[in-house]
């Protein structure tokens, strides 16, 4: 703080602190508090707001537990977010290993650039592009038919397929970067030492590289999982009639029913339940929060 004052003087330092405080308080914390408070109040006609019926209760939260459909949607959201996380790991791990330990230093920046370029396009456009690619009479089916790999076109956008493909594509880099950093920090001598002691490649990965990369795997997984479970865009664009995502229910409460109270309660429930789920998984894999922060 004194360093800040010395560098920029009182006026500028004050401005920085004020702007940061404004952003944090007004744009982040206050809206949350507002929604949190509302989530405990009933949805009432405007004339009755503040009246005798406007009391705090857990009713909005209990609505979720009383609806078997919503519980089912919640669990499929958890299950398919997990599937997305595992798929992202399967794709990102070999790539991260290649980038950090195999590829020559000179080409790594170019490879990263190639990976980043798709990120420059907005998520909406990317998801919509997949909508076109995966369409029943779209280019993917056309190509696969043309190559003779399949004999009948596949309904890519039925069930959760479209959502999974869209999520993996959108979030795989969030898995790649922490993994890359984790593997990068492993002393290459350790890999060579394992080989030198006779270890085949898979055991070197299992016993030396994967344990070292665990914090990276954990933080990548938490990010991909939370982003997937909380995303609304990909499910809206790539969902089918049989795939409902929990965020869509929140959106329905808020924008179709105009019931912000129940919507807020659902949003906080999603956050809470996902946090519980992630904590349990972390406990199972013996990952500590401090590992992820590294």
């Amino acid at each position: 703080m004194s360093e800040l004052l010395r560098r920029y003087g009182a006026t500028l330092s004050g401005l920085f602190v004020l702007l940061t405080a404004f952003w944090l308080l007004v744009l982040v914390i206050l809206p949350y508090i507002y929604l949190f408070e509302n989530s405990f109040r009933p949805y009432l006609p405007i004339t009755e707001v503040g009246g005798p019926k406007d009391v705090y209760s857990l009713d909005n939260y209990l609505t979720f537990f009383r609806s078997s459909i919503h519980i089912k949607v919640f669990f499929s959201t958890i299950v398919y977010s997990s599937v997305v996380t595992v798929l992202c790991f399967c794709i990102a791990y070999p790539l991260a290993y290649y980038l950090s330990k195999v590829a020559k230093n000179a080409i790594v920046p170019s490879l990263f650039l190639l990976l980043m370029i798709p990120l420059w396009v907005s998520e909406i456009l990317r998801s919509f592009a997949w909508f076109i690619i995966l369409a029943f009479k779209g280019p993917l089916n056309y190509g696969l038919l043309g190559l003779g790999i399949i004999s009948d076109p596949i309904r890519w956008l039925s069930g959760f397929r479209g959502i999974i493909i869209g999520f993996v594509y959108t979030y795989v880099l969030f898995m790649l970067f922490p993994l890359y950093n984790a593997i990068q920090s492993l002393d290459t001598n350790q890999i060579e030492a394992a080989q030198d002691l006779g270890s085949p490649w898979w055991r070197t990965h299992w016993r030396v590289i994967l344990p070292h990369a665990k914090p990276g795997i954990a933080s990548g997984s938490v990010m991909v999982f939370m982003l997937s479970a909380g995303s609304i865009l990909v499910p809206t664009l790539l969902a089918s009639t049989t795939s409902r995502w929990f965020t869509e229910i929140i959106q329905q409460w808020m924008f179709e029913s105009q019931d912000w109270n129940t919507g807020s309660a659902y949003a906080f429930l999603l956050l809470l339940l996902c946090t519980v789920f992630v904590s349990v998984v972390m406990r199972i894999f013996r990952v500590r929060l401090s590992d992820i922060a590294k």
Partner: protein
Amino acid sequence: MKGSVELDGVSADFGNFRAVDKVTVSIKPGEFFSFLGPSGCGKTTILRMISGFVTPSEGSVRIGGQDVRNIRPNKRPTVLIFQNLALFPLMPVWENIAFGLEVRGVGKAARRAKAEELLKLVDLPGAADKAITQLSGGQKQRVAIARALAVEPAVMLLDEPLSALDLKLRQHMRAELRAIQKRTNVTFIYITHDQGEALAMSDRVAVMSQGRLQQVAVPQDIYNRPANGFVASFVGENNIFAGTIESRSGGSALFKTGSGTFKASLGPGINGATPVKLYVRPEQTRLLEAPPQGTNSIPVTVADVAFEGNFINIHVENGEGHHFTVETRNDGTARVPLRGSTMSMAFDPEHAIVLADESGIQGRSA
């Protein structure tokens, strides 16, 4: 034959850079063999070619008589001890040691027993369940050696494993390593830039510079009969005189320098064409009040005296401004000359050796 290592005209190129240049050497089973040289001389690359992490660009490597060209590192009968040891920090000590056995499908109980046994061998009993981070530098060293011995290699490759230790521990580990090597009778190939280490531990030493072997010999011969000027100046100290051979007869010669003409012995492979210099070890020189009869001497002025305890280093200079060192053993009665006094530095012809001047090639860095 198990445990022998033969390098036959082996070279290694990295792009345009030739790290190792046509090295041929034959290492006997059970030998303690050192590659000695300044950093960047290619000695680590040689080690990595033997262990299989670097493929020679020409020549062949044979281990136990078998050409290992197409054998991957994990299938070679060699184990490398890395300079930074490369212990696995996430495994406890015993799992580190037993890793090679785990790979070979040995059961857990047997692995544990073998690890305990090796820990006794390297004098670290009771450390089996410790974490690697709990160990001191010397203890890590021992664990690395135990981990390597666990797979019963025919050849153990050591890449400056003592360089991270402090002086006392280093000297202790030298003796320890040597003892372990004799006990296990495994071929040790040792890489170092520390001449003391190489001379003290090895059965034979190969001195390297700029990717080339300069001399392969037993330690005494490396020191007493250096093959060329590089070996002479890299191993131990020397007083060096520039000059030319005036005349030669048999193994001796008259060597003409700016400070006078000296009687000298000819080193190996000296013909008229090679540029040469005269090398005299500081401990083979002595300071006298008056010029002696029948041996070489030059008048010098005492510039500085360094009392080292067991010996005394006297730095002198002659009229042309050349600096020399005279080393005298401290037998308790040695007189220390006064700074500024004029004396004679004397040395005998058999200890003044004319060698090919290779000191120019020393300048390349890593």
